[in-house]
């Protein structure tokens, strides 16, 4: 009796999983999105062949695919060169040392051109830095603004004024301030990296700040009263009641913030010639070879896919953190 009661749910779940493996289950699920993509590619091919630019024909799907492969190949060629460079250097130094143990050996860093894939990583690291920096300020400040009407009233005008400012307006200021204040001997970060990250942070700040404020301010009044009756200390109150209650809104803010940050980053890199995907696009544009448009199109698609994946990542994180497992998250 109890035995069946225990096994039944897991059996059911297994049956469900097994059913999902059958093509009749997942084919219809994928059919419509695939159809959409196919229609888009056909439309792209059709219109690309009709657009003639000064750099040649607008790239269609096939050219873009070729360029994607080229960019990958270039990356690995560059890596091979790098490995070879270090091997040569090591060998040279070893020879020098064997000839004269007191000889001064030089260790040089390889200074090749960053490839497309290097630029992707640079951009990802930069956006992550800006995002973390922004939210280390935005979440605590948002909690304060949500908890206290006074703090909110004090910060609200500033928030309202700086929120709509385009990142590109910040960029010159950030650049000047960074180059004026950040001058250490052996810098941990490059200035360009700091410029981009701070510009991203200045734009990432607002969505999280505003959403956290709203989330914290709209906590159920009864729950706040329960906390007051228990005489919880402010820190415990924030940790046990405010933060869990505001988690959904904080995550809404974080997702908006990351999306904004990613968009802003590309623009900032383009404008300031800071390393990253934006610079890649700009360099290709200046380069103006017949392949440039195809390579830019690859960058456009990659930027889109990465943006999508970043959002999915946040959504997964939200699902992990959220206490309300029934909530529909999209």
């Amino acid at each position, binding site marked *: 009796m109890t035995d069946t009661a225990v096994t039944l749910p897991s059996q059911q779940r297994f049956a469900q999983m097994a059913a999902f493996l059958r093509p009749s289950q997942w084919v219809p699920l994928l059919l419509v999105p695939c159809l959409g993509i196919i229609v888009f590619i056909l439309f792209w091919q059709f219109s690309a062949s009709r657009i003639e630019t000064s750099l040649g024909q607008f790239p269609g799907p096939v050219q873009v695919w070729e360029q994607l492969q080229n960019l990958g190949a270039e990356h690995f060629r560059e890596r091979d060169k790098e490995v070879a460079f270090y091997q040569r250097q090591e060998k040279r130094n070893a020879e020098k040392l064997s000839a004269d143990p007191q000889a001064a050996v030089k260790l040089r860093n390889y200074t090749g051109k960053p490839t497309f894939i290097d630029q992707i990583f640079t951009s990802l690291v930069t956006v992550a830095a800006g995002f973390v920096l922004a939210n280390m300020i935005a979440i605590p400040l948002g909690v304060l603004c949500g908890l206290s009407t006074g703090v909110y009233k004090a910060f609200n005008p500033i928030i309202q004024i700086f929120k709509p400012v385009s990142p590109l307006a910040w960029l010159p200021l950030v650049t000047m301030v960074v180059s004026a204040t950040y001058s250490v001997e052996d810098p941990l970060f490059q200035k360009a990296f700091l410029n981009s990250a701070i510009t991203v942070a200045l734009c990432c700040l607002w969505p999280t700040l505003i959403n956290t404020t709203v989330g914290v301010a709209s906590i*159920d009044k*009864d*729950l706040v*009263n*329960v906390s*007051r*009756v*228990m*005489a*919880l200390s402010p820190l*415990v109150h924030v940790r*046990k*009641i405010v933060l*869990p*209650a505001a988690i959904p809104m904080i995550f809404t803010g974080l997702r908006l913030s990351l999306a904004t940050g990613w968009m802003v980053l590309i623009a900032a890199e383009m404008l300031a010639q800071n390393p990253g995907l934006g610079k890649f696009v700009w360099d290709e544009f200046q380069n103006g070879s017949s392949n440039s448009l195809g390579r830019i199109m690859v960058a456009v698609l990659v930027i889109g896919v990465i943006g999508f994946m970043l959002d999915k990542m946040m959504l997964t994180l939200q699902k992990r953190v959220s*206490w*309300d497992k*029934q909530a529909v998250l999209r």
Partner: protein
Amino acid sequence: MSIKYLDITGVGIEFDTNGKKYRALQNVNLKLDKGEFVSLIGHSGCGKSTVLNIVAGLHQATEGGVALEGKEVLDPGPDRAVVFQNHSLMPWLSVYDNVALAVDQVFRKTKSRAERRQWIEHNLQLVNMEHAMDKLPGEISGGMQQRVGIARCLAMEPKVLLLDEPFGALDALTRAQLQDSLMSIQTALGNTVIMITHDVDEAVLLSDRIVMMTNGPAATIGDILEVNLPRPRDRLELAEDAGFVHLRQQVLEFLYAKHDKHESQAVQSVADSCAQLSAIPGPEKSVLSSSGTQAA
């Protein structure tokens, strides 16, 4: 006059919403002995919750004040635990953790970790909820949630237990069950309780005194009814009991006849004109019986 355990003296409150002043309470006086069970009853919006919140320290009285054991109440605190109308459990904490939040706060210094764990389990057992300790509030029924809310308050060992319509949102059967468990817990532990209710039977069954409030604005205590029924009380036996029926009648009379000022005046004038025509049943009585059956 001796100093009472809980002393509500001359309490009045004026709310200020966008510059518009609203006087909710005026000159509320109530004194409770230790271990006494008092019900607050009155029409919706008259200010019962406001009285309770002032005792809890969640609202500040505009004039007058509350003293517990001779000490003035200024802030909310765990010595005056409140069960809110809609359970108010933290939805992200399990049943156990909800109670633990209160217990860890109150007994942080006086009980060891193991003792606290035992104390939490003991309080959940009091309300028969030990079987659902690891569930989230969203996964248990409304009646169970309310029981956990009560366990959370009992676990704080409050001097005064404040219940704001604790069983209002429950079905009649669950309500009866919870009333019985509340009654036995209160008898066993000797808590001092103020309970708000809309249910006349509940008030008579549970209380030592029933405090009946007049309608707002400027609501105050209209009448206080002593309930001298012997304890332990049994709802089935009492249903037939003449004393019980009489008390119930008195509360209903207060609520539906004496205190619906406008309505009773209207009824009075109609009745006056009718009385001139022929001898018909008195207005009070007809109003009473009709509302009485509704409430029952």
